[in-house]
């Protein structure tokens, strides 16, 4: 009733008719009524769900699957479960490389596969549940793509000792049934850094990273070291498109384009991008300025948009597809090794591409550097 007093202060007519029309502002009933409404909402929701459940009872063939969610696979063996980080299949980058390895193994060994994508900003518990769901519905082996799964994998792998797990880009989650597929991104980046320095006419190059996280900084570290090995006084511009927890930098071609434009205006003539889906924008800017670009992860002279792919002189190959395929091949052969499988230059896990013949003139020099890294003559730091 206090509200009614306020209303009269405000000069509103507080007749009983008006009160009724307003739906009644009586405060006393408030909590009780709202509680009843909310309870009803829950009851209705549950009721509707139940009706839906009951209605399907006759026609639903898998009506008995109460314990296992959804259609459980028929066989317990040879069903590969793969969990992506944010982005999932179709990001034309990291996740797609994993998908390529999965698809290849699927065709070759006749494996059943299922891949699940993550949602942005989820908790570790949700990642755990994704792996648990796969493991408990009979998927084996299970591959997690991305270091974000580290903590989740460690926990879930311990709960399912009979299931083989693999995690890409993480060496922290260790266990008797976990294979860690890690890459020496800095070594491959060293070589394309050297290529950039050798190819640059102005002695000025650029690096564009997607998101400033340690993983992407490995690319920067290698690139800068490689360029400086060739030309110690080279000018290198380094920029990241976003800072964590903002992960848009991996999927913002427009920002990639303006950032690259800025570098080109400041004198750079070779730009290396490790920015996932933003890379297309970088290539566009480079194409407009008639400069050179270096691709990342896959051979982007082949995979990038045809309109811009001719500016790509080389790409730093990070063979996630090979790592995933190898793991599955070993699984089929019953020969899975737990622990770290390091895909470096020596193992052919990282490399540079020569598609288009644009770096044929410097290939011997690059091969020399490659040999030195493989021999251990040059050690490339993973931090900038």
């Amino acid at each position, binding site marked *: 009733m206090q509200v009614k007093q306020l209303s009269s*202060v405000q000069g509103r007519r507080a007749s009983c008719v008006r009160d009724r029309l307003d739906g009644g502002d009586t405060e006393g009933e408030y909590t009780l009524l709202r509680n009843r409404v909310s309870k009803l909402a829950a009851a209705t929701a549950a009721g509707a769900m139940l009706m839906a459940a009951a209605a399907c009872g006759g026609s639903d063939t898998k009506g008995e699957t109460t314990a296992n969610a959804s259609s459980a696979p028929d066989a317990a063996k040879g069903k590969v479960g793969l969990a992506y980080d944010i982005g999932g299949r179709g990001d034309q980058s990291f996740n797609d490389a994993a998908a390529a390895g999965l698809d290849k193994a699927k065709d070759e060994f006749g494996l059943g596969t299922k891949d699940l*994508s993550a949602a942005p900003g989820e908790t570790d518990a949700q990642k755990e549940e994704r792996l648990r769901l796969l493991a408990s519905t009979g998927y084996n082996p299970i591959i997690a793509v991305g270091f974000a799964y580290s903590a989740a994998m460690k926990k879930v792998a311990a709960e399912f000792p009979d299931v083989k797990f693999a995690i890409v880009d993480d060496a922290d989650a260790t266990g008797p049934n976990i294979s860690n597929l890690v890459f020496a991104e800095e070594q491959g980046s060293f070589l394309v850094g050297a290529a950039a320095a050798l190819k640059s006419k102005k002695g000025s190059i650029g690096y564009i990273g997607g998101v400033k996280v*340690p993983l992407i900084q490995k690319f920067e570290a290698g690139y800068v070291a490689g360029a400086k090995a060739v030309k110690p006084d080279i000018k290198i511009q380094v920029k990241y498109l976003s800072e964590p927890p903002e992960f848009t930098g991996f999927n913002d071609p427009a920002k990639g384009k303006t950032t690259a434009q800025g570098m080109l205006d400041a004198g750079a003539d070779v730009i290396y991008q490790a920015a996932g889906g933003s890379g297309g924008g970088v290539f566009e800017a480079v194409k407009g300025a008639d400069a050179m670009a270096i691709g990342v992860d896959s051979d982007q002279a082949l995979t990038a948009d045809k309109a811009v792919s001719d500016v790509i002189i080389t790409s730093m190959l990070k063979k996630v597809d090979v790592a995933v395929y190898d793991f599955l091949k070993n699984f089929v052969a019953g020969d899975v090794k737990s622990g770290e499988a390091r895909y470096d230059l020596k193992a052919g896990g990282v490399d540079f591409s020569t598609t288009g013949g644009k770096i044929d003139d410097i290939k011997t020099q690059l091969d020399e550097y490659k040999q030195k890294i493989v021999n251990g003559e040059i050690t490339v730091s993973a931090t900038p």
Partner: protein
Amino acid sequence: MSTFLDRVFGRVRLDGVMAFVAPALAVVFALLVTSVVLLIAGHAPVDAFTTLVEYGAQPRVLVLLVNLGTTYFLAAVAVAIGFRMNLFNIGVDGQYRLAALIAASVGGAGLVPGALNIVLVVLVAMLVGALWASIAAVLKATRGVSEVISTIMLNAIATGLTGWLLTADRLGVLNGNAIGTPPIPEDAHMPGMALIPGTPMKINGFLIVAIIVGIGYAVLLNRTRFGFNLRATGQSEPAAVASGVNVKRMVITAMVISGAAAGLIGMPELLGSSFEYSLNFPTGLGFTGIAIALLGRNNAVGMALGALLWAFLDSSSDALQLMDISKELVDIMKGVIVLSVIIAYELVHRYQVVAAQRRVSHELAAPAEKEGAAA
């Protein structure tokens, strides 16, 4: 007359049977729209809903739902405190992230032992959240800056600030490819509760905190003078001023309380699960909170149910994908549910107004004619 916003935020309530019709309408409508979407995509809706319900009923998933719901509920309460006085704290997102990062560093430093550390971490988080929110509050009270604009901008600044702080030479520790604050010592982990049988997984201890916060919220708003002033300011600022409410002070107090509540959002994850603020720390919870506050119409019980529903939808994405149904269906369902709740309440409210008008005119007309006029 009440405004549309008054009705959306649950400041105006429905009478009698109508109060039951609105949520029922919303649920039926949401199920219908989702079914149509499923049919268009070539899936059997009944199968999909059955699988989701079966999935959600597993003990392991129930634990996940309750834990996720706890976090979502805290986010909704933080948002709702502002909503009830027409204060749109869009900055809950930045407030909880900054609070969690700084609280995690303080906790990781292990300044005090055991349970005291838990208390310290929570207090630091609430303090940081309140301070960050107070920037927008002071700007609004002194310069009249819209809190919507300032909090959105403060979100972006919080993102930049946490990014800058979470580097190896500041608060972060490099850990393989991940970077995070030093882990909080084991004696300061919030103990879990094994409430749900059939799974070794435990309910986060912060469920109790969330329940206390929910009760506190309801009591504060409905049973205290401050709560009355807050609601009155939300309903009619001139009326509140006329009755002696210091609106500027209300703005600052409400915003600070909202920010302090926002500081709690990250705590279940930080003290009950991850024990560090890393690149993996959940983001966007502030915006989830806005949706749930709308869904629960700023009522504590309503928001609790909304939080559980939201948690259920969020975790059903994997079960959907196993059935080869796109996970985007979850986003469609969320959007449809929020819209249906708003539309259903508005429709029922309007129907009620018209019905009441009819009844009144009927009553007024009655004495004029001996037999009464037909409606």
